[in-house]
């Protein structure tokens, strides 16, 4: 979809819908919505204007991996000195930034559903 803030609500809704399918709790669903939003905000600030934002969801039996990617003229890993990164890494189970190949910049987030009965 276009690398434009206007489309983020679509992504958040898609994230929530898929997380719900995996039986995540409402709290975890909300965390993922926020995480996706933070990730996209960071990427959009580096994206080539008028280019596309790619988003892919991979569903495992107990987890969900979301990858968001843009094209950037000088892709640089998002600064860890921002609230966006702090919040993103706190709410998504695991986060990774990927630079390349070429002008691609991506953030990969993964969240696992805790096993029932765990703390």
């Amino acid at each position, binding site marked *: 979809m276009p690398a434009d*803030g206007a489309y983020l609500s679509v992504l958040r809704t898609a994230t*929530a819908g898929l997380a719900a399918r995996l039986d995540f709790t409402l709290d975890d669903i909300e*965390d993922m919505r926020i995480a996706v939003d933070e990730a996209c*905000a960071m990427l*959009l600030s580096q994206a080539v204007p008028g280019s596309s934002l790619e988003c892919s969801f991979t569903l495992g039996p107990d987890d969900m991996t979301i990858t968001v990617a843009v094209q950037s003229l000088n892709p640089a890993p998002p600064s860890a000195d921002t609230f966006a990164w702090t919040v993103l*890494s706190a*709410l998504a189970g695991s986060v990774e930034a990927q630079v390349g190949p070429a002008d691609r910049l991506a953030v990969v987030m993964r969240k696992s559903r805790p096993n029932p009965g765990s703390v």
Partner: protein
Amino acid sequence: MKSAAPARGRPGADDTDGTLPAVLELSEDNDLSDAGELGDAAGLSDAGGLGDAADLSDAGELGDAADLSDAADLTPPPRVQHGARERSRARDLFERLSGLPPDDPERLRIRSELVELHLPLVEYLARRFRNRGEWLDDLTQVATIGLIKSIDRFDLDRGVEFSTYATPTIVGEIKRHFRDKGWAVRVPRRLQELKLALAKAIGELAQNLGRAPTVAELAGHLQMSEEEVLEGLESANAYSTVSLDAPDSGDDDAPAVAESLGMVDDALEGVEYRESLKPLLEQLPPREKRILLLRFFGNMTQSQIATELGISQMHVSRLLARTLAQLRDGLTSED
């Protein structure tokens, strides 16, 4: 953000008929006392920069330059930088904390500093939940409780960054606040009204069109942004947070703005104001200018403005805050 005494009664506030000083009413309106969003706007009214009509008609200053620069020092929301300096300061404080005996009064002082150090994080997180019908002040307070809990529970030995540790606790505290208040059954009134309006509009349009309306058609019919229509349609979801990047609707208000801008401009005719303020006002986009004028010259409440423009009150609040911040920046950069 306390209510300041209106300037109308003050000596010297003559020519402008107390219209510009109406900005001091800023602090009375509940929405605008939201700490997070409008800290600068409140600072502006407290400084009396824009609000002091007497100063504005003086040959000299634009109000108290010193106050305006204080307002300029207020961190504009939302703060996004959370640097190494803050993190290492936090680490130092926690180290000192762990070395103190339980009843040492120094503990309290260190905890206070830790809280203050992380207030930007608290506000950053609280802002996400601001569309759920709670005042941002309340959310910030709740979030701060989460912060304090985190501070008390945090253990440096965990090897994790405090902010990272605290975020889920703070967010959890906010969510629990909503759960305790029965969020699942209590929908903000604005959304309830929106849903009713939508249902009615869908019915009317469907009848006229002979098919289901599109979101754009609904938005046009209700004089709202498409984002708001979608929000209303989605409001069946129990949980929703607002993207920090959520765009303001662009040209949706254009026709309405053009109509009454002429009317409001007439109100400006008899007003004397400083040459530096006038060009700034002129530079504002039509809608923002209209909102500002309706608020301070038309003395309309945000709700009334919202109805007039066909947008939500929260939207008016946001635009107003942003516009005031812009004006403040424009005024201070003159020095």
